[in-house]
């Protein structure tokens, strides 16, 4: 009965809402996906946040602050959506802090130069938006609604990143070289943000059937390459892929095979950066403990006073 009702809603492309009965697997898959998405927003604040104090103009400083602030906000929207499935935010944060839940490994790449801030906006946010727009129609209502809000706010993130790249590529020779280095660093990681190839993505079929996912990894990856190559050309920059060529017959760009071994290493969290990221996050949480205790104690006292 419950299952049949759920299946009928999914079949009719209706939305599932928090109080509805849903299969455990659906609930668990969603909690995992939404939490990982939320964690990615929160951890993703770090590589960019490091540049707020060093941004080369006041305008860029303001833009970057607003962007990193949006990311905190997006994390909060997403934790809210995940919580509606019955797992409190505190528990989700514990899972992040103890590395039992992952965040996107794209944030484990370093940002040694200012141009990386441009490349992240242009490529990483570009790839993220491509992943996220279909999620606005996710079968789970609160996730879809959070994504609508996020996509609306995030449209400036990619544009500001591209504008940074544009300024650099029209700037001094050093700035141009910096822009090319950033593209070299971020091209392949961005391509890999869409996840493993469909042939190696065991959960895709199920997620598509449930309306959690709307396009396959490879479909989205192709869209991304097709959209991005002309943007790189306009910048006068060259993606680091010798196999990249327009295929008139397919009406798409052909491109090379990413280094999936590197992808696997990044997903496993190898290298020093994951410990740094989680370390910063945990320290903030632990050092904030006395503040949260104080606020809770004050609220308790005030409730007691108003009850008396």
């Amino acid at each position, binding site marked *: 009965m419950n299952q049949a009702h759920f299946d009928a809603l999914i079949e009719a492309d209706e939305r599932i809402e928090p*109080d509805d009965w849903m299969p455990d697997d659906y609930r668990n898959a969603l909690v995992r996906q939404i939490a990982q998405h939320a964690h990615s927003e929160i951890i993703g604040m770090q590589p960019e946040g490091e540049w707020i104090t060093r941004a080369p103009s006041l305008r860029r400083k303001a833009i970057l602050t607003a962007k990193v602030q949006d990311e905190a906000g997006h994390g909060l929207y997403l934790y809210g959506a995940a919580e509606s499935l019955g797992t409190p935010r505190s528990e989700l944060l514990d899972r992040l802090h103890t590395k039992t839940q992952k965040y996107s490994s794209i944030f484990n790449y370093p940002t040694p130069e200012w141009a990386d801030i441009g490349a992240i906006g242009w490529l990483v946010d570009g790839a993220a938006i491509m992943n996220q727009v279909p999620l606005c129609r996710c079968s789970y209502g609160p996730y879809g609604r959070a994504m609508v809000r996020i996509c609306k706010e995030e449209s400036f993130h990619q544009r500001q990143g591209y504008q940074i790249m544009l300024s650099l590529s029209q700037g001094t020779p050093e700035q141009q070289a910096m822009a090319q280095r950033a593209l070299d660093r971020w091209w392949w990681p961005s391509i890999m943000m869409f996840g493993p190839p469909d042939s190696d993505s065991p959960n895709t079929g199920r997620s598509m059937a449930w309306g959690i996912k709307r396009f396959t990894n490879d479909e989205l990856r192709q869209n991304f390459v097709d959209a991005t190559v002309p943007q790189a050309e306009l910048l006068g920059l060259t993606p680091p892929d010798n196999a990249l060529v327009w295929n008139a017959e397919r009406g798409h760009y052909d491109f090379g095979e990413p280094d999936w071994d590197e992808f696997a290493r990044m997903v496993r969290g190898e290298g020093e950066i994951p410990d740094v990221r989680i370390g910063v996050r945990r320290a903030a949480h632990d050092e904030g403990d006395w503040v949260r205790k104080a*606020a809770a104690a004050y609220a308790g006292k005030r409730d007691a006073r108003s009850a008396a």
Partner: protein
Amino acid sequence: MSTVFPQWEVFVRARRGLDHQHAGSVHAPDGETALRAARDLFTRRQEGVSLWVVPSNEIVASDPADVGALFEPAADKAYRFPTSYELPPEVDHM
């Protein structure tokens, strides 16, 4: 033992003359702090002119299992709608 703040549902009035609409939720130790957090989170782009925050656990919600009993009886009462009254063309704007 970590401190967990209660959850608050946030409602935003986008413009004067419109109802408050549910926007999402925040965690905060008390109502005042919840209002400030809601302001920062949901009205950064001039989305609102008024805010409500309500403790999430104070919301009384209908049970999805009751959907038939609660909402289906309204389905066969076409006479509540103006379209179910056919009138001569001369007065059909009524």
